[in-house]
């Protein structure tokens, strides 16, 4: 949903509470700040998270979960029992082999398909979970589930939970930022909402381009006029505060104005990439021939800049125009090729760049879609949704590189070993940030709610 995030600065505004103290702004200094950094439950392995959200459900058997059996059975009727109640279309086809060859990479020899020539160079820093499952096979529910741990609208997103738990170390930007590559996922911006948590913790959506946040550019003709206005507003407000009984609330409201004013410079500064070297820009693909590589490269580079500024949780959404995101019910070849082309080089650059700057150790990168795809065709050249077994990978802070965990059956349809749920993924993410997922609660609707509901197990096997 768009809503608050459409104006997009709820959290941004709150974060400004942390902005450098201004000598002439007495009220702002001593206010309790919702984003003040808070201690984790135990020493963390990662400080920040970059969540590379692969909207639509990438195919595991075409990317990170090779299945030689599919080659043998290609074109034959799919032999396993199918739960048709999970198919989004009544159009089941024959067994379909991977359209891309796999090759082993790195010292660990983990196979990756030809879809990801850049990312595959980093396998020794990555842990592949091949046994992820979801409870939902519709995009909207599965998106909510992946983001909030519940398959319904209106629950807090993981980024909200993390900033609620830890606050932010960033001095001038929000703690939870979604870099919008151009696609709003099914379920809308509610995937990034704070739900029942205070609105302070919702994502700020940064749109692509030079003016990423609404109502930031001042409508006043000049800065001087804005200053005059703010001065008079403050004068009138302070008098009003002195007459009224409830000074605390009014004081906080007055302080907001000063912060709002200062925020108007913080955001443009972030979006200005002119200080990045040509080599860096090229590495991220900012000059790539494919427009979506350039676009995704730009938000990957922004993600690194946000990590440098101490932003806690950064999520990247996909670019549009690649077919229907990763959701290739037909045209798998073309759709997956374009989607991979958009993200492969930028993500690889992000890993390289973070590592070069010594930031990878404290930054956890998560690559995940809301579910996988069927190893049999939908129609002839597509794949339907598959929540029973798909691959996500992680790299960076606290992750044991060169690892694979869990397994699907010979066809890559269902998990048969070390089955994981989204709750386990969340529990593990929180654990790496130093948070006990069972202790991170918020009282709502008569219950102590958790991101992991009543579930979640930490996947120690992928932790270094």
């Amino acid at each position, binding site marked *: *949903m*768009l*809503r*608050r995030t*459409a*104006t*997009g*600065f*709820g959290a*941004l*505004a*709150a974060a*400004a509470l942390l902005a450098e103290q201004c000598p002439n702004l007495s009220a702002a200094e001593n206010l309790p700040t919702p984003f003040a950094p808070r201690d984790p439950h135990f020493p963390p392995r990662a400080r920040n998270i970059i969540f590379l959200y692969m909207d639509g459900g990438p195919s595991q058997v075409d990317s990170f979960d090779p299945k030689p059996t599919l080659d043998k059975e290609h074109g034959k009727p799919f032999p396993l029992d199918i739960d048709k109640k999970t198919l*989004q*279309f009544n159009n089941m086809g024959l067994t379909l082999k991977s359209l891309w060859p796999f090759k082993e990479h790195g010292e660990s020899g983990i196979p990756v398909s030809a879809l990801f020539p850049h990312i595959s160079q980093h396998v020794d820093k990555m842990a592949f979970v091949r046994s992820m499952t979801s409870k939902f096979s*519709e995009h*909207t529910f599965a998106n909510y589930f992946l983001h909030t741990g519940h398959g319904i*609208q*209106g629950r807090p997103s993981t980024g909200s939970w993390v900033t609620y738990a830890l606050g932010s170390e960033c001095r001038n930007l929000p703690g939870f930022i979604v870099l919008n590559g151009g696609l*709003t996922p*099914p*379920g*809308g*911006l*509610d995937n990034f*909402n704070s739900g029942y948590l*205070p*609105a*302070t913790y919702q994502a700020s959506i940064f749109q692509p381009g030079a003016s990423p946040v*609404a*109502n*930031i550019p001042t*409508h*006043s003709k000049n800065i001087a006029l*804005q200053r*005059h206005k703010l001065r*008079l*507003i403050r*004068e*009138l407000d302070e*008098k*009003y*505060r002195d007459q009224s*009984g409830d000074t605390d*609330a009014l004081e*906080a*409201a*007055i302080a*907001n*104005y000063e*912060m*709002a004013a200062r925020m108007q410079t913080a955001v443009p500064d972030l979006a200005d990439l002119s200080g990045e070297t040509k080599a860096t820009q090229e590495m991220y693909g900012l000059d790539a021939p494919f427009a979506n590589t350039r676009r995704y490269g730009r938000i990957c580079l922004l993600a690194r800049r946000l990590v440098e500024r101490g932003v806690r949780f950064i999520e990247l959404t996909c670019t549009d125009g690649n077919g229907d995101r990763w959701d290739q019910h037909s045209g798998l070849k073309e759709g997956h090729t374009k989607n991979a082309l958009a993200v492969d080089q930028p993500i690889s650059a992000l890993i390289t760049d973070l590592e070069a700057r010594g930031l990878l150790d404290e930054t956890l990168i998560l690559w995940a879609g809301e579910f996988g795809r069927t190893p049999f065709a939908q129609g002839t050249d597509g794949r339907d949704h598959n929540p029973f077994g798909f691959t996500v990978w992680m790299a960076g802070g606290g992750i044991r590189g060169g690892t694979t965990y869990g397994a699907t059956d010979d066809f890559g349809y*269902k998990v*048969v*070993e*070390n*089955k994981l749920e989204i709750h386990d993924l969340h529990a593990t993410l929180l654990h790496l940030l130093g948070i006990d997922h069972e202790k991170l609660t918020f009282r709502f*609707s*008569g*219950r102590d709610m958790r991101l992991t509901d009543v579930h979640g197990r930490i996947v120690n096997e992928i932790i270094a």
Partner: protein
Amino acid sequence: MVLPIVVMVCCRPGVVRAEKAISEPGTRAFFQQKVLPLLEARCYACHGPTGVREEAEPAGGLLLTSRKAILRGGDTGPAMIPEDADASLLIKAANWEDLEMPPDTKMPDAEVAILARWIESGAPWFGPTEDIEPITEPFPLAKRKENHWCWQPLAMPTLPNATDPAWSRNAIDDFIAHAREKIDLKNAPDADRHTLARRLYFAIIGLPPTPDQLDAFLSDPRDDNEAIAALATQLLDSPHFGERWGRHWLDLVRYAESRGHEYDHTTPNPWHYRDYVIRAFNADLPFNEFFIEHVAGDLLPHPRTDENNSANESILGTGFWYLGDWIHSPTDIRADEMERIDNQIDVFGRAFLGLTIACARCHDHKFDAISSHDYYALAGYLQSSSYRQVRFDTMIDNQRIAEKIWANRKNLFADVTERLQADWQTNKKRISTELLAGLLTPESSSDPVGWNKILYDAKNDPSHPLYVIAKVAAVPTDKRDAYWKSSLEKIQQANATHLAQNSNRFVFDYTGAKQLRQDGFAFGDRPRVPGELWIAERQGSPQLQIAIHPAAQHDLRWPTLALTRGTQKDQGFLENLNRPGRTLKTDTFELDHAVHCLVRGTAGLQIVVASHRMIKGPLHNDLVQKLDTGADWEWVTFKTPRYTGERAHIEFVPVAAKPFELRMIATGEEPPALEPVGQSIALAVNAKGGNTFKDCVEQYVNMTLSGLQNTLFGKTSEHHNPLELALANWAMAHPHITENLTGPVQSVLLDYCDHEDRLLEDVRTHSRTALAIWDGDAENENVLIRGSAKNPGELVPRRNLEALGNHSADPELTGSGRLQLARSLANPTNNPLLSRVIVNRVWHHLFGKGIVKTVDNFGHLGSRPSHPELLDYLAIDFTNKHWSIKELIYKIVTSRTFRQQSRPSSENDIDMDPENIFLSHMPMRRMEGEIIRDAILTVSGKLDPTVGGRSIPIHLTKFTSGRGRPASGPLDGDGRRSIYLSVRRNFLSPWMLVFDTPIPLGPVGRRNNSNVPAQPLALLNDPFVIEQAHFWAQKAIATAGQSPAAIITSLYRDAFSRPPTNEELHAAMDFLTTLASERNLEETDWPKSEELWADYAHVLLNTKEFIYLP
């Protein structure tokens, strides 16, 4: 605890016997060395003995610690069937079919085989046993009820003695003062009239007073008591009262105009519900009636009508059930249904009862006196009802006409029957003679040509009653006897095969005076009863017909209905069905591979599976269908293999001016055989004996006469044989056979039709529609174990919550019983919560905080009331005064407590009571997003005060994107109050969300009150605010004259309901002077500069005083 020994045994290699013995599945060795270690390794962490398993309770209630325990099983039933491994849940779970156990990694096939072999061998147990029943205490509902305040009956408290009678205005003040004085707090002085005016205006109508309204109050010569009372009365009478308080209510019912999720599909015509709420508040509809209308407004025998017309007002309340978020193409249609019902129960429970009933979906409530059975008992009411768009505008008028017509027809047929009976014996002979002649020797009949045509048509049409005899009549006379015999043999053989094949389940029909379930009047007042007369039309003349089978029949005389322009339709595949006011609904049944409908004519239909309605593809499209059988009865089949086991009903929508009849529904893979009526008659004739063609013809004649005679004289259905009726109906349709019988009534029929036509002219064919509930057949829901639709438990009869009186739906009822439920809950003796919860909400809106702070949760985890006696006093007083919201508000706003200033009388009061629980002063509050926007429009002079109507699309910017993005609306929302801005779930107003307007997913009784710099950014930079500041400046310049001081004063009175202080005037002049000098404006030119004044006005809109209410 014996287990350690076993562990030892199986770990000691010395004990291992010969390999052969081990491999015998029924042996002790096999069990102890193969089976038990497996159970221990794979299962006992969750299902093992106490001390071994990780949790106190075995997972899913299942222990695998003895044969008995395994046989007993857990939540999902027995875990094994000895000697039948394939059917045993243990093996299915280990194979990850349906259940997946152990949950992480599938057991290797070899291990599953060990368990399977053991079960096949009869599952002998040679180990330690732990047979303790899983510790499940009975749910302590009664104890919970007894121990928590909210369930206790309402009790009128003793009024405390007023310690300061001069201060106190009414009982509220006595309670407040009493509690406050106990901890030595003082009351605050009264606020001044400027402040009181704003407080009353915003609290009651949500708009600031205009300068004239302000002056009227300020100059009211009466004392404060009387002046406040008068103003309160005046404001409660304002049409804007309903807008202010209606918006509070909409927060509770998650009011929205779209369905959210992937494409944010439009919810059709939701604004009628919104306007209903506004009208209900304005009319001061007693809250108990408001509640009953919400739950069962469709079932009231005498619904309220709109005061200006005959629209059904009560039924609009039921729209709230269907305001939730919906998805298209759920892959698990039943699970999706349970989510929708859960949301309905959650809204119902929290909004009206302050109870988190929805917490009891997966298990008995963890803290409150609400069992899982309670939850599913309520779910049954919703299962027994369904969604529709109702023609609320015209349904009452049209019902009056329909009932008049039905009564007239009844009279007509009584009259006609009497006339037909008059000469029956004579006519019977005439008909008999003509039939015999026609069938045996047509040339000797009264109409040889007519008979030749009858016989020709009949022999070519198996559905013709005379099919067999006509075929026989067509062969040469000498061969007729033999031909009859051979024809009958063939029919008998074919029938035997049919009967053998028939494996259908007949799930619905209209036998036995069954009620019609229809939305509207297009199917008459009841199903056709065999042997009854009805009027068809034949070449422009009325034609008497005899009903043969019990069936619902489209009344072709009832006009085809349409929607008024601008009325939204259901989306997707339902869009073209034209359902409202002309839909026939079957009872609910269970699907099994296919549905077969015995029908005649043309219709559209929806197979409503698990109440799913958002048919937009890619899934479930084939649930919306068409059928067309022409003039013949046919079994029409729709395949539904995906839905086998799901509950469904069918809704049929006839096609305009085309016949449609429904007789029966069956399920099963193949359609039932249809016995052609001509053959059935021949069989009946044959059964009566007779060897010759002539004998047979005589039987045909006798049956026809018997059918006619029973039609005229038969009283009960036993008299009626459908085969005889078919013959009689056929005879009736041929004037040369029955002209002496029916001729004399022809003019009666013609006169009647003319009369009916005049009545039908008044039918209102065009109507608007609104969301509403539609009662169905009585249906109960199963307890779903752990909330999963895949795991149904016991069936629970529909009833109220046990802790609230436990009223059960009458098992004899043919409908849902919602009305009885609503009435039971509206009775304050059964249910103290309905009144307590709403009284507390009103208090919350007036003071910013409820007596019970958690306004939506009165349960164990909610807050305790700060003033419990006051709460009960108000609740009882409220019910005594006809549940009048207006009287309640009046009482509160005329209290002295409400009149206090917001500044406490001393700092001590804040120290003693930092949260101001004891109301020693008025809490200061930031206004809601809608109210800030409405106030901006009011001061700018651009507010359009129109009440009600279609919603104005929200203004969207480039920051608003996503699937289903609607067209952007005007920046200023056409100047309409915020309650009239459209509420699309995925595209809510970004501007108002900054100020915490609610997300419409569940009830929000208490809004967030955030304080983030997003708010200043919206007020400083949003083009809406800038634009309105300009309008406001124009208005002030135009009305206040040339003096800057006068303009400033005018702006102040608009914005803050008071004149500026000298200091503020100076500050304003300083600001204006600075700006003017930068713009080189002479002071005399100031009044001409809209820009200058707009900048100043913009400042005032940004002050805290503008958005805070002391």
